[in-house]
């Protein structure tokens, strides 16, 4: 076989015999992955278009208004919903959902995961806002005077790529799982601005459209 030359075609690349696969992965990741992709497979044996198994469990966190745990391959994201009542006449109260994606210290590969989370957080926020999943008015308590402000916190607990997909699925399914308590009304007949707590009687789901599955 020919020795290595600059610009040699891929099929004639000499075999790197004697190098252990995980050493090659560290020394030359591009080379490592090319050798799989040329044959149409990934290192874990999947075809290039085959997704990893996804597991989703919703509603298991009793202290949150809504929750979801998503496992996508080895990536693990837990999302929970909290809410406050926002009371305002001028400007008129409007509902909102704030999404945060964080990487706590418990997560491995934290530098890589934090970098991904910085990009993924705003992307998931935009995907949710632009999808129409939560229609204007769905968060109103008293239109124009009181509305729900939701906060969805997604935590990446184990990172193995696909953070956007896992976080988006966790956030949207947590919102769908959310059950809001009845808003408390004060003596003056006005809604009280406060943090919402899970309703022992169960609470009411939001009226939602279909969830987004792709970046905006």
């Amino acid at each position, binding site marked *: 076989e020919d020795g290595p030359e600059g610009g040699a075609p891929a099929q004639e690349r000499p075999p790197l015999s004697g190098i252990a696969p995980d050493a090659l992965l560290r020394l030359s990741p591009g080379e490592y992955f090319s050798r799989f992709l040329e044959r149409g497979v990934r290192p874990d044996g999947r075809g290039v278009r085959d997704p990893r198994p996804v597991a989703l469990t919703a509603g298991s966190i009793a202290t949150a208004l809504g929750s979801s745990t998503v496992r996508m391959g080895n990536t693990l994201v837990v999302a929970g919903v909290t809410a406050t009542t926002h009371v305002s006449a001028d400007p008129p109260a409007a509902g909102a959902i704030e999404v945060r994606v964080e990487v706590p210290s418990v997560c491995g590969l934290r530098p890589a995961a934090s970098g991904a989370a910085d990009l993924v957080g705003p992307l998931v926020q935009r995907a949710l806002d632009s999808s129409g999943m939560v229609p204007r008015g769905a968060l109103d308590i008293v239109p124009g005077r009181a509305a729900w402000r939701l906060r969805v916190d997604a935590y990446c607990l*184990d990172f193995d790529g696909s953070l956007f997909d896992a976080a988006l699925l966790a956030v949207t399914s947590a919102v769908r799982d959310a059950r809001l308590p009845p808003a408390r009304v004060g003596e003056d007949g006005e809604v009280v601005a406060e943090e919402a707590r899970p309703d022992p009687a169960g609470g009411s789901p939001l009226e939602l459209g279909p969830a987004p599955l792709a970046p905006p």
Partner: protein
Amino acid sequence: MAAVHADVGVITAAVGSAVIELGGSRVLCAIYGPNVDSRQEFSGRGQLQCDVQYATFARRRHCEPAAIAEAQAEVAADVLAALTPAVRLEDYPKTSWAINIFVVQEGGAVLPAAINAASLALAHASVHMRGLVGASAVISTGDDMQVHPTEEAAGTALATVIVATMPALGQTCLVRSAGRASPVQVLDAVAAARKGCGDIHAHLRKVLLARAADGQL
């Protein structure tokens, strides 16, 4: 025992990991290391570091960030106090192990769940230990005691006692008591907690042995 649920290997990127559900608290722990800190002076003994973070939705009653930060720091300090006697730090000169904890849900008492998670995760990581640590909380309502209290039960407590032991060695690693109770009630609570630690220890041991049998340790 139905009161506790434990599993290992939940966080695949970590050297060792565990999840514990106890008394309505759900806590994850991941172990990272051995880490070398070249800034530290040479020490013949290794060190443990602990970091605790609560999810924003972990508490049913919302608290000021300062209160959460204080709770996180207290749990971290107590986890270190409970686990330091158990780890053979003399086997790890000039290195440190990181015990990173995430509280998904806070029930009656987070600290025992955190200690159990750390103990199980360290064992899963094959960190050298003198013994597996089991921790348990007991609340006293004056007339009655309850082991592994839920959030609802803890609301009625006059005093709370938390104990961590190494049942295999018959040694106690940590005793924390808060609230008001007669000396007899405190001693009774400690005794009940020690028994609770033994029950937890048996369950943690079962989980580890099952994993070892599967060849996953």
